[in-house]
């Protein structure tokens, strides 16, 4: 919450509606996943995503949620992770079934959601906003035309849920991994995560209000 306070300009004034609408829950789940990444799994990596830094916005873009980039000393060590987070307090975790289709769109015909767009968007920011055309070229080099050609992009399907639903979450995650390998992704390029927080519904409402 302290971290969020640093990036969110205005929390919702209490009393915050409980349950929250699913969009806000999803956005907050992305923020939580981003925080975990920054603190633990992606220390020192660049993070980019449409919603995590503005979870209370009314807008929730349908792209893959988080985009992690590591620029190594040389181009061969550059790496990207794409993290899609499904936040759910539903015992069935039905929403997690969408993990497959969300990642499938990385190699689809909707150019709003393709891996190429994602890489090129970041390259564009590097080129024009950060004036780093060198890094822009390096990130474009991670592109591929189909999942089986990908070598330095890892998928991170992630479920954020209650501790009591972790078994279901595991099952959903395994299902997603299997589906992704069927699409052509190498198993070694899939790194799933399950995040559990008790009283998740209440926690998210409190966080939306800016408190513990």
């Amino acid at each position, binding site marked *: 919450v302290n971290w969020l306070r640093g990036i969110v300009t205005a929390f919702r004034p209490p009393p915050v509606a409980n349950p929250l609408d699913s969009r806000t829950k999803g956005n907050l789940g992305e923020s939580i996943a981003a925080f975990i990444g920054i603190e633990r799994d992606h220390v020192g990596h660049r993070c980019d995503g449409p919603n995590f830094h503005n979870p209370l916005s009314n807008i929730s873009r349908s792209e893959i949620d988080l985009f992690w980039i590591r620029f190594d000393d040389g181009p061969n060590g550059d790496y990207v992770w794409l993290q899609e987070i499904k936040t759910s307090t539903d015992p069935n975790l039905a929403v997690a079934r969408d993990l497959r289709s969300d990642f499938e769109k990385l190699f689809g015909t909707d*150019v709003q959601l393709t891996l*190429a767009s994602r890489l090129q968007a970041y390259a*564009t920011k590097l080129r024009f906003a950060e004036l780093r055309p060198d890094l822009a070229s390096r990130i474009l080099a991670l592109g591929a035309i189909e999942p089986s050609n990908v070598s330095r992009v890892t998928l991170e399907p992630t479920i954020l849920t209650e501790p009591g639903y972790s078994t279901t979450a595991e099952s959903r995650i395994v299902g997603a991994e299997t589906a992704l390998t069927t699409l052509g992704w190498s198993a070694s390029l899939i790194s799933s995560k399950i995040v559990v927080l008790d009283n998740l519904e209440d926690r998210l409402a409190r966080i939306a209000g800016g408190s513990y």
Partner: protein
Amino acid sequence: VNLDGDELIRFEQAAVASTRGLNADLPQWSQLIAVAQMAIGAAQDELGTPDQSRRTFYLDIASRILSSAVQQSSPVAKDDQPRLRLLAAAAFSLQGNHPSAFAILSKLSEDDLGSFSQFECFICAILSPRSGGQLRRFIEDPSLTDILDSYLGYFYGGDSSTLEYSRAQLVAKFQEPLSSFETVILGVAIGATFVAQNLGLIATIREYSLPISSTFADGLVAAGVLTLLPPQKEALTQSELLSSTGNALVTMPTSSGKTLLAEFLIMSTLQEEGVWACYVTPYVALGSQVVENLRERDSSIQVYPAMGGYISDGVPSIEGKRTIIVATPERFDSLIRNFSPLLTALRCVIFDEAHNIQSGSRGARLEGLITRLRIRQKSGFQFRIGLISAVLDDASEIVDWLGGSTVVHIHSNWRPTTRRIFYWRSNGDLLWIAENDSLRASAQPARSVLGGTRLPWPQASVRATEHFGAQRQQQPQIAENTGYLIRYLLERREGSVLCICAAKATTRLLALTISNQLSVKTELPMSISRILDLIDSRYPYLSDLARSVSAGVAYHNASLPSQIRQAIERAARAHELDVVVATTTLAEGVDLPFRYTVLHDWQMWGAGDGEQRPINPLLFRNIAGRSGRAGAHTDGDVFVWENPSGNYQYARSTEIWRSLIGSVVPQSSVTLASPLESDGSTSVTAMYASQFLAAIPENPDADPLEDLLSENSYSFRRVMARDRIMSELRRARSSILDERQGALGLAASPIRLTLLGSAALASGLSPETARRLASSLPRIDLESSLAAICASLIRALPDVPEQGNSGLQKKLLKPRTQYPIGPDDLEEVLRQWLAGREPLDIFIDLPYVNRSKRAGITEWSQGSAINEGWSAVFDKFTDFINDTCSNFLPWILRASESLSSQVPELRQLELFPWPYWARYVEEGIESEWGIELARRSASLSRFDAISFGERIMSVLDEDPDVWFAASRRSRQTRALNAFSEFAGESAGDEVLRILAS
């Protein structure tokens, strides 16, 4: 991009094959789109590198894949296509290909644009400045409209600070929350601003201080020319096109901007008052377009159209003005023969479609003209010659002809639309041939097959035969094959088809065959209704056209009344016709927005010997250029098929591939032939003799003149024609000096013209024809009616080469020949023609028609039955009207004036009103009003034009208050101007009603 060049090309080819139903084993569209996106990314990476060829290559790959992805037949989800269009526009825009960016964005529907974010609409406007105005209504965000207005302002004002401001604002947009896709297109748009900045028309004119007036530049911008195309920019800034005093040759593909370069060249030479330039164009329709464009550009320039056949009626005063005369070669020839002092004020001559040099007697005239101009240049005249052509590749001989190292040769293969060739074999294989596509893998020669599918001929039994009767019998089956191919293309719903035939009868047969298998349109567009109304009210015999046009199919040939032809062209321009089946005249003339071209006949009749031969590769290239018009389409597909009709020598099964592919994809570069290489007819010989005659006073000290002419000719540079041109010119000299029927020149070393020679020169006739006319004139009763005089003239000159109607020639020489007009009919036909009677009515009353055992004339003429037999006979009649009455006779009448005014023996004939007679006959109307209206291309029939003239004069005369101060001539001019404004779009009847009321 982690793919090498050949791999990328194969992906591009797979995308093209997929949307054309070719090949079975294709990559998924998701892969193709990933390739395209990666290519755009790679191109962005190359921005700013000195060698831009890789960037261009990547953008070619991306734009072609993406434009394939949005074809109607693409399997890509419809919801995904609008943003693919946007991305395709981005790829085009980054290449400076704004016509294609415009074309692909203009197909976004209102719904598509409504589904876009404001930001996406805004980016579309940045990518295609020409679309900016239209797209602005979808953008409400003031921060975006502010950027857009500044950006567009650059193209209108040329102030780079406004563009730099808008670019800075675009960069600032990265601070706002954008989706990945929006971020991508923002980046591309920023890149595109650099490209557009470089190509901005006004800014280029200013930055490089191009010698173009601001009025002219503003006129271009007002006409929507905001940016130059890359080859135009290069030509204007990196070559000496505008700064040199040497001649110029512009060889660039169709739609790549040659005409604009020619306009710049002309304008750069018109830097003072009292000088003029000439734009020589082979077709009236093209010339009219040039006149219209030039007048729109700069009203301070006097633009004078001089169209039609050989006319020496006069020229406008050029004193105190800058003048451009837009002329046919015949009119230009007449100008420089009869008004030679004008040459000192001439600054530039442009010859459009310069490859026509190889075409028969017209080609010989062009060659003669340019040869004479080259000699004048060498004697100190200060004008530039510019030749432009879309189809030449190896032009070294032309460069040498025009002046070798001093020539500015602008050559480019860049074209805004991609052209692809498809070949349909008799075994049912439809093959995509690589041709000279810039994107070919390293192991793909020009004739390699890039894709194919099975499409069996519905009439597979047709075959080549030596017997003409058998050939004729299988024409309906052959037409069915072409019709099947065209329906196959129409099912893709990409755009309209232009089908090219060698004969008028075939255009009718094909149009009916195709339309019979299409359903009649339930809601007829306005332009089609207009055609039907015209047929119903004035041309009922065109019931075959009425039937086919109701299904969206029209035929177009020289036998159709000009009103109908223009109405068909308007309908095609408005995308309201699906198919136009035409003879090559349309293919070489007006630029209409066809998506496909289908070549029905690939063997064409030779002008010289009447033999059928495979189509000349340059003509094929010109025809192929009709598909995929820039700004309307991004692609143009050309289909040829192994039509077995024609000369058996080429069409038999063992030869057909070699014969046809030889024309379509020649193995070596094609050079321009001399007219003497392809045509040995008397008309070519006569034209060289006429040109020789014209050169005599132009070169008073040259001896022998034939050597001078030969050395400066194009034919001299052709191994196959060098000896021929010398012998032709020697023969011309002998003919001119021949005293037996009156010498045209005296062998005084150098030659001096006799009075007869001077008259012949002014007339534009060949020496022999001039002699025959001079000897015939005293025997003609000039006190009789004009119709009788004209009939006598035709009978007196039955076989002169200037009278190009071979059917009439044969009939006059051998009266038993089958032809609808005999020597005894001429006077009556001409009398009715001059009285303004409709050609059909004259035709029906012909003795030939009344005697004929062919049934059904009444039903055919009234439109209740289609009768190809009568249509074919009527073709011959309209040929007579078009060739003999409207062209040959006026020429001869004017020539008679030249002869009678100069030759002492004919002086007594000088008082006859030859020029007036010529005008009457030319337009087929004995009315000054009618003639004026016809000259202004009024869309009235000749008969209505007379009626209109009478009525408008009576109206004007009744209103003295308004018209009192004006002279009769001024009133006529005013009324005509008013009429012309209406006549462009409105029906003649409407104009009559409006003006009469």
